[in-house]
Structure formats: structure tokens, C-alpha cells
């Protein structure tokens, strides 16, 4: 055998391997045992291995001496590099890579290899990552098939060896992670930090498919097997002396060979990760996936996922609500009803674990605790180291794995594919519950509390306003009655103006209304009705009964004569009378004298003629009538002892008579004629006065009649009647006699004077009566106003 020149690295490497194989420290390695394992780990065909062994001379020796061992190793390297196995190549081939025995020393610089190796050594030194070590321990037997029992034993061994008690839940996690990692290369997936072990992965992946496929069914039942296989490969690497020291028992059982370097690095890394080692640790890939999922819900990584969205998301995992609730309680660290990124990752991790059949912990594992902001750096480092260990996986490995495991494992590489069961939580939400919106249970905001909606209680101002409005309206209405009352007088004159025939009657009606209004309340309606009634009265028949004395004439400025004339002109019934009246008034004063003579003429023509005589007689009658009236009045006054009132009455009467010449004349005539007859039938009297003003005459005669009544009461009617008749007769007689003789003229003049005086008295009486009525009306008005005022405050209530 040629001398073997080994490089320094090779020297070391070979030495380590030899030491590993030289279990008995005999400087001789048996052909079987670890050497075989080692060579098998070299992943070389058996024939090549045999060739190597033959070449190195082991077959000759039956054992592997150091040199032979070294040669064998060198040949393994050669074979692995693809060079033909030639003895000559031992030294000729330069830069030959070290023989790779699963755990290549070259790649051990990568943390992952160390991780793997550390995982392999985990059971010995650390309790966290259970799966690899137990798997490894069990795999040591060299059998591909493994069972959970072995895992358990390994775990027991782990416990015995490792001071740290590992939650027995880790085993599934690491196979879990292993699967994932394995799949990664196979899936050609994301670039992981395992880029280094990429080539390392390759052999793994090559070895895995077969093993994994075979172990998949086993996986269904057990998680460790694939890991065990992986670990087996790892285990092939010669352990370091430190490793050996750490877990002598496990190492002895294990067939894994670890390179010293790898072991050391692994130990170092493991020591670093031991503090973070946790079956619940989230692997890097997992975390990345969680972060991506978080982004789908909440783009801002620093933001929160509201409880409702989280509930929807996690409900898709089809886990029972109770378990989801528990997961939430565990993961929502700050109990704010929202998930931060860390909380979300923890929750997601727990969901994954639960989906894989692992029970939920009572308390949140440390690794899953949401890192506080100030601890992020250290935690990140820890996470990295933890990730190096690839130990993140739900704890508690029940022997029986849910059937979802293989599918889950398979789906691991396809993280972002919706076909994954657990990852993308089928769209069909199991509960399809509406989000609990704390509608009724929000502690701070509860409608039942004192948050009382102010109930606007209106005092019905509108009503009051309405009432006020009504009152105002009523007030206005109240005023209305006054206004009508007020208006009445002007209205009356207006009405009088409007229709002469209606004038007096309206006045009378108004006065009637006034008189009646006393009994009336301040109800505007009544007043209005009274007004209307009055108007109706006025409008209906001018020949009303007892027409009140005419209201004050609208033209008080008129002198007697003028007023009389005016009245005569307006009050006279339509027709010639008015014309005659109009024409006559201004000539009243001088006329009496000639009228005396013309009186009879007047009468005569009146009697004889028709209308023409009316006009002529009217002026004549006027003086006559007043004469008659005055005469009668005088007599009446003289007889009765004229009182002031009577004088006033006479004055009023006379004035009224003068004002209402035609009617007065008629009335006076009537009065003169039928002095005692206190007939209210002015119209009756009017016709007697040769068709004089009818209705208009009514009002004036009324007071006259009243006065006459009183006068009659005072004096015997017969006397007055006779006197009046006598007067009338005398007047009548005197009038025709005027034109007969001058001497008669004197008498006529005297008669006319007397007549005028009588007329004056009558008019004065009428005037007084009218004034009295005016006073009454005013008093009524005042009373009405007072009543209105009294009613107003009531209306305001």
C-alpha cells in the first residue's frame, strides 16, 4: 500500500473518524460496526465500498488499521469525487475533498449542519429538541423502520443523559421541521438560510425521498421516523469527543458518525441555542410564513390584527371554538383583543400544533411569547439560533399522529398554496359565526347604564303658541268686534252713504246691534253676527220695526240746515224726492214763510198731483212738517212743562228732524198727526207723509216717538193729538192762506215762525235723543272693550 499523504485537514478528519470508529481504542477498527456505518454513510455503492476496503488492505487484514482506515477514507473521498478508485489516486489526486459521510465536514461550517448534528446530540445535552436525538438514537440500530417506542426510549435516554428535561413534545416538532427542511430543497423553495447546506441538502434529499416515502406511512403514525432517518444520516457523522462525552450512552447506541468539527460547532451552536431551545419554537420558515399570513390580514407589520379578523382567520382552521378560544387566551399576551405580529405568530403556531394533534399547553411557551419591543434584538438572535436548531415544533408528541401529519408535512414546502389544509384554513369557516361584536357586553359602554338618552320633554310650546296665536287671533277677533263696532259707525255712515234707503235702517240696526250688544258677550262672532244681522237687517227691509235713531251723521260739520238738507238729499227715497230734497235744503230758512203759503199748495199738489207735487211739496212740507212738529212739540212741551231733556230732546229732535229733513218731516208729520200714536211704524208714518223717506225716516222718528211717547205719557194724547191736529190743520190751513192776503202773510210768517220753532224744538229733541243714544252706544262700546280686555288675559292662558 502506498504511503498516504494526507493533508492536514484530511489528517485531522481521518483521525477523528478513526477515533470514532475505534470504539475499543485498539487502534484497529473492525471491518464491521461503525466503519461499515461510516462507509455506508459515504453514500457509495457497496461494491465501491468493497473495492475501497480491498484497496486499503482491510480485507487482507480483516480490520482497519489506522493506515488502512486512512486509505479507505481517502478512497471514499476519491470515490465520492467521482474518480476511479485507484490506489495510485490516493496520492496523486490533489485537492481531494474530504470524504463526505453524510455530514460533510466541509459543510459543517453551516449552522444547519451543526444544527442537525446538534439536534442529533440534543437528547444528550439538551432536552429541547427531542425528535432528532431520539430519532437518532433509535435509528442507530441501523434499521430504517422505527417506532415510537424507540423514540420513547430515546427520549428516556435523552432524559437520562441530558440534564434539561425536555418537554416530550419536541420529537414531533423536529421531524416536523425536518420534513419541512427536507421538503424545501426538494421543493426547490425559498431561499433559506440553509443555503449553505444546500449541497448538503442534496444528499439528504437524495436519501430522503426513499426514506421519507417509506417513512411517510410510518409518519402517519409516528413523527420521528423520517427525522430518525435524517438523524441517522446525521448520526453517521462521527461524533466529536465532546459529543461522546456528553451522551455516551446515546452515542454508543447511535451509529451516527459525526465529524469532530461538526460536533464541536454543533455543540457550540447548541449551547447557544439551548437557552432558546424549545419545542414550541417557531422555525424560520414557519415564522416567515406566519408573517406573510399576517400581512394578508394586516399590511402593517407593526399593527394589530383585530380580534374579529383573527377569529375569522383562525376559524378557517376548523378547530373547535373552545380550542381556538384557548389558543387566543394563550397568544393574546396583552389581552387587548388584538394580535400583534408576535402574538399572531404564536397563535398561528399553536393552531398548527393543535392541527397536528399536539395538545395545547396550559401556559404560553416562552418561545411563543410575544417579544417585547425592547427585547426584540435579543429575541431575534435567539430566534435565529433557535431556528438553527430547527426545533420549533409543537410540544407533546402523542404516539399516534393525526392523519393530517403527512399531508401537513407534505404541504409544508408549499406554504403559500391554498391546497394546504392547515395553512390556508379552508375557506369554509366551520362556525360561520358572526363576529362577536361585544355589542351587549362592552363593559364601558352599555346602554343600560346611566347613559340615558335625554328624552326631550316638550312643554308643548307649539300648543301654547297655538293657543297664543289663537288668543291673538281671538284678541284680534276681540278687537274685531270692537273694530266692527268701531267700524260700524263709519260703516254705518258708509252704508248710509251707500244707500240712502238703507242708511237709516242700518243705523238703526247698528244701534240695535249696539243695544243688543250689551247683552252679547265679547264674542266677535256674535258681534259679527250682530253686525251681519244688522246689516242683514239693513239690507233686508228698510221698513224695519223700531229703527233706532239714526247714528250720528257722518257730517256733523253740517249745520242744521245743511245737515238736514244733506240728510234730506241722501235719506230721501230714491226718486224725485231726493232731488227735491236736495234742491230744497238750502232754502229752508226762507222758505218756511213762503212755504206757509205754499204749504197747503204743497199739500195740495201733493194730494193732487203726484210725483211732481212731491218735489214741490217736499220743500213745502218740510217747513210745514217742522212747523207741525214744532207746533206739536211746542205744545207738548208747553203742556208738559218742558224739561231739559225734553228740550234737548226737542233740540235733538229738531236737529234730527232738520238733519233728516225728509224723514223728519214725515215723522214729524206723523208725529204731528198722530202725536199720541206712538207707533213705531215709521214706515206707516212715512207713507202718510205722502211717500216720504221710508226707512230712513224710521230711525229719526223713533226717538221722536219715544219722546213723544214720554210726552204722551205725560200728557193726554188726545190733547196733543188734537193740538197737533189742530196745529196741522192750522198749518195746513194757514199755508194755503198765505198767498191770499198780506195780512195773512203776517200770520203766515208768524205761523211759519211758530212752525219753525216747533221744528226746532222737535229737532232739538231729536238731537238730544240721538246724543243720548250716542252716549249709550259709546258706553256699550266701552263696556265691550273692557270685556275684551278682560277676556284677553284669559285667552293668553
Amino acid at each position, binding site marked *: 500500500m502506498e504511503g498516504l499523504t494526507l493533508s492536514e485537514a484530511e489528517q485531522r478528519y481521518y483521525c477523528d473518524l478513526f477515533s470514532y470508529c475505534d470504539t475499543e481504542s485498539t487502534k484497529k477498527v473492525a471491518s464491521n460496526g461503525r466503519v461499515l456505518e461510516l462507509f455506508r454513510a459515504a453514500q457509495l455503492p457497496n461494491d465501491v465500498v468493497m473495492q475501497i476496503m480491498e484497496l486499503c488492505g482491510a480485507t487482507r487484514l480483516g480490520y482497519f488499521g489506522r493506515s488502512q482506515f486512512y486509505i479507505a477514507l481517502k478512497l471514499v473521498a476519491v470515490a465520492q469525487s467521482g474518480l476511479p478508485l485507484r490506489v495510485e489516486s490516493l496520492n496523486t489526486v490533489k485537492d481531494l475533498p474530504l470524504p463526505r459521510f453524510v455530514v460533510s465536514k466541509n459543510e459543517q461550517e453551516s449552522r444547519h449542519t451543526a444544527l442537525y448534528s446538534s439536534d442529533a446530540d440534543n437528547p444528550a445535552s439538551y432536552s429541547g429538541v427531542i425528535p432528532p436525538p431520539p430519532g437518532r438514537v433509535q435509528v442507530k440500530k441501523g434499521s430504517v423502520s422505527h417506532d415510537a417506542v424507540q423514540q420513547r426510549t430515546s427520549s428516556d435516554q435523552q432524559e437520562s443523559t441530558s440534564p434539561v428535561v425536555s418537554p416530550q413534545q419536541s420529537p414531533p416538532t423536529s421531524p416536523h421541521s425536518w420534513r419541512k427542511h427536507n421538503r424545501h430543497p426538494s421543493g426547490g423553495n425559498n431561499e433559506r438560510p440553509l443555503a449553505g447546506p444546500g449541497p448538503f441538502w442534496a444528499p439528504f434529499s437524495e436519501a430522503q425521498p426513499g426514506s421519507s416515502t417509506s417513512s411517510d406511512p410510518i409518519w402517519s403514525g409516528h413523527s420521528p421516523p423520517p427525522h430518525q432517518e435524517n438523524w441517522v444520516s446525521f448520526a453517521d457523522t462521527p461524533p466529536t469527543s465532546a459529543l461522546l462525552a456528553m451522551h455516551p450512552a446515546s452515542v454508543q447506541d447511535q451509529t451516527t458518525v459525526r465529524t469532530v468539527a461538526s460536533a464541536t460547532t454543533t455543540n457550540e451552536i447548541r449551547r447557544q441555542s439551548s437557552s432558546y431551545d424549545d419545542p414550541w419554537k417557531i422555525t424560520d420558515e414557519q415564522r416567515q410564513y406566519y408573517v406573510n399570513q399576517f400581512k394578508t390580514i394586516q399590511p402593517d407589520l407593526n399593527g394589530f390584527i383585530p*380580534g374579529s379578523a383573527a377569529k375569522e382567520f383562525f376559524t378557517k382552521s376548523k378547530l373547535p371554538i373552545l380550542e381556538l*378560544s*384557548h389558543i387566543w387566551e394563550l397568544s393574546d399576551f396583552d389581552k387587548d383583543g388584538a394580535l400583534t405580529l408576535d402574538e399572531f405568530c404564536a397563535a398561528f403556531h399553536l393552531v398548527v400544533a393543535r392541527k397536528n394533534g399536539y395538545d395545547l399547553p396550559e401556559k404560553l411557551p416562552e418561545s411563543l411569547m410575544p417579544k417585547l419591543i425592547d427585547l426584540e434584538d435579543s429575541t431575534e438572535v435567539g430566534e435565529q439560533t433557535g431556528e438553527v436548531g430547527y426545533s420549533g415544533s409543537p410540544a407533546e408528541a402523542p404516539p399516534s399522529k393525526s392523519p393530517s401529519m403527512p399531508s401537513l408535512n407534505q404541504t409544508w414546502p408549499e406554504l403559500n398554496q391554498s391546497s394546504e389544509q392547515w395553512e390556508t384554513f379552508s375557506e369554509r369557516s366551520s362556525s360561520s359565526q358572526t363576529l*362577536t361584536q361585544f355589542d*351587549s*357586553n*362592552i363593559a364601558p359602554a352599555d346602554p*343600560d*347604564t*346611566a347613559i340615558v338618552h335625554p328624552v326631550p320633554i316638550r312643554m308643548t310650546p307649539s300648543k301654547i303658541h297655538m293657543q297664543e296665536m289663537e288668543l291673538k287671533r281671538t284678541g284680534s277677533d276681540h278687537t274685531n268686534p270692537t273694530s266692527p263696532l268701531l267700524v260700524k259707525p263709519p260703516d254705518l255712515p258708509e252704508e248710509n252713504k251707500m244707500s240712502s234707503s238703507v242708511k237709516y235702517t242700518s243705523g238703526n240696526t247698528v244701534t240695535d246691534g249696539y243695544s243688543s250688544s250689551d247683552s252679547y258677550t265679547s264674542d266677535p262672532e256674535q258681534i259679527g253676527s250682530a253686525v251681519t244681522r244688522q246689516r242683514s237687517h239693513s239690507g233686508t227691509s228698510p221698513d224695519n220695526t223700531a229703527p233706532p235713531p239714526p247714528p250720528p251723521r257722518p257730517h256733523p260739520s253740517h249745520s242744521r240746515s245743511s245737515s238736514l238738507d244733506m240728510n234730506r238729499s241722501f235719506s230721501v227715497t230714491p226718486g224725485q224726492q231726493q232731488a227735491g230734497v236736495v234742491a230744497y235744503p238750502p232754502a229752508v230758512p226762507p222758505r218756511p214763510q213762503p212755504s206757509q203759503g205754499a204749504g197747503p199748495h204743497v199739500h195740495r199738489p201733493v194730494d193732487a198731483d203726484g210725483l211732481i207735487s212731491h218735489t214741490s211739496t217736499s220743500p213745502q212740507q218740510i217747513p210745514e212738517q217742522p212747523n207741525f212738529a214744532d207746533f206739536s212739540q211746542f205744545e207738548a212741551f208747553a203742556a208738559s212743562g218742558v224739561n231739559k231733556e225734553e228740550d234737548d230732546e226737542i233740540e235733538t229732535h229738531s236737529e234730527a228732524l232738520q238733519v233728516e229733513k225728509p224723514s223728519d218731516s214725515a215723522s214729524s208729520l206723523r208725529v204731528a198727526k198722530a202725536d199720541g200714536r206712538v207707533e213705531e211704524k215709521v214706515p206707516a208714518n212715512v207713507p202718510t207723509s205722502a211717500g216720504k223717506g221710508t226707512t230712513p225716516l224710521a230711525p229719526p222718528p223713533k226717538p221722536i216717538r219715544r219722546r213723544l211717547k214720554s210726552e204722551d205719557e205725560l200728557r193726554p194724547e188726545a190733547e196733543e193729538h188734537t193740538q197737533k191736529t189742530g196745529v196741522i190743520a192750522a198749518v195746513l190751513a194757514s199755508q194755503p192762506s198765505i198767498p191770499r192776503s198780506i195780512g195773512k202773510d203776517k200770520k203766515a210768517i208768524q205761523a211759519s215762525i211758530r212752525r219753525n220753532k216747533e221744528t226746532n224744538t222737535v229737532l232739538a229733541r231729536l238731537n238730544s235723543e240721538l246724543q243720548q243714544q250716542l252716549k249709550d252706544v259709546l258706553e256699550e262700546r266701552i263696556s265691550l272693550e273692557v270685556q275684551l280686555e278682560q277676556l284677553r288675559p284669559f285667552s293668553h292662558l
Partner: protein
Amino acid sequence: METGIICHRPQNYPLYIRSVPTENELKFHYTVHTSLDVVDEKISAMGKAMVDQRELYLGLLYPTEDYKVYGYVTNSKVKFVMVVDSSNTALRDNEIRSMFRKLHNSYTDIMCNPFYNPGDRIHSRAFDNMVNSMMMQVC
């Protein structure tokens, strides 16, 4: 000694019942149910006054010969009723208040859980733990 804690919804059905010696649970259930009338009476007596922290604690509802009943109502009309054995004289009012406060806090934590539907029985383990610890402390 015996302590029963029940949460009631506004409709007065229990959400959570726990008593230390579990054999008398039914009795406590009855006691709490009868005490609901007193609670409602106290609530209505408050009228429309703002419900503040002080008024949440109703105090001793009524004492019987065997036990005392304390009440507490939250803003959302969830009532907590605690039945304490009269022999346990060490319990002061402040302690009862603190216990109710803890109960309230735990209850709000439960409410924060979106998976918890208001009105469901409370199955939260955290709540159970808290209640257990509290009751252990009392007994």
C-alpha cells in the same frame, strides 16, 4: 370555606359556577338565584345614577345564618355573586372587593377573546385558574 361564584347575564342565567366544596354546588346555585332579586333591587334603587366603580360593588346582599352573599354588577349588567361561609370571618370587605375586581378583570379578558360569544358558558382555563387561586386563597 365554601365559596360560590356565579356570573349572570342580564337575563339572569348563570355563566359560570364554581364552588370549592363542590358537593353543595346546587345549594349555592339556589342561593345565588335567590339573591338575584336583591341585586336587581339594588340596581333599580340606584336609579339613573352613573354607575361607577363604587356602585359596581353591591356589598353584602344579605346574610343568613350560614353564609353571606356579596354582589357585584358590571356595567353590562353582568352580576357576580359570591357566597362566603359565615365562619370565614377573616374576609373583610376590601378583600371581597379585590376579589370582585379580579373577577371583573378576568371577565373582561374573556370578553376580549373574539371566540367567546357573550352568553356562553365560560370555559376559559385562565378564568378557571384565576378563580381557583382566588378561592384557595380564601379558604
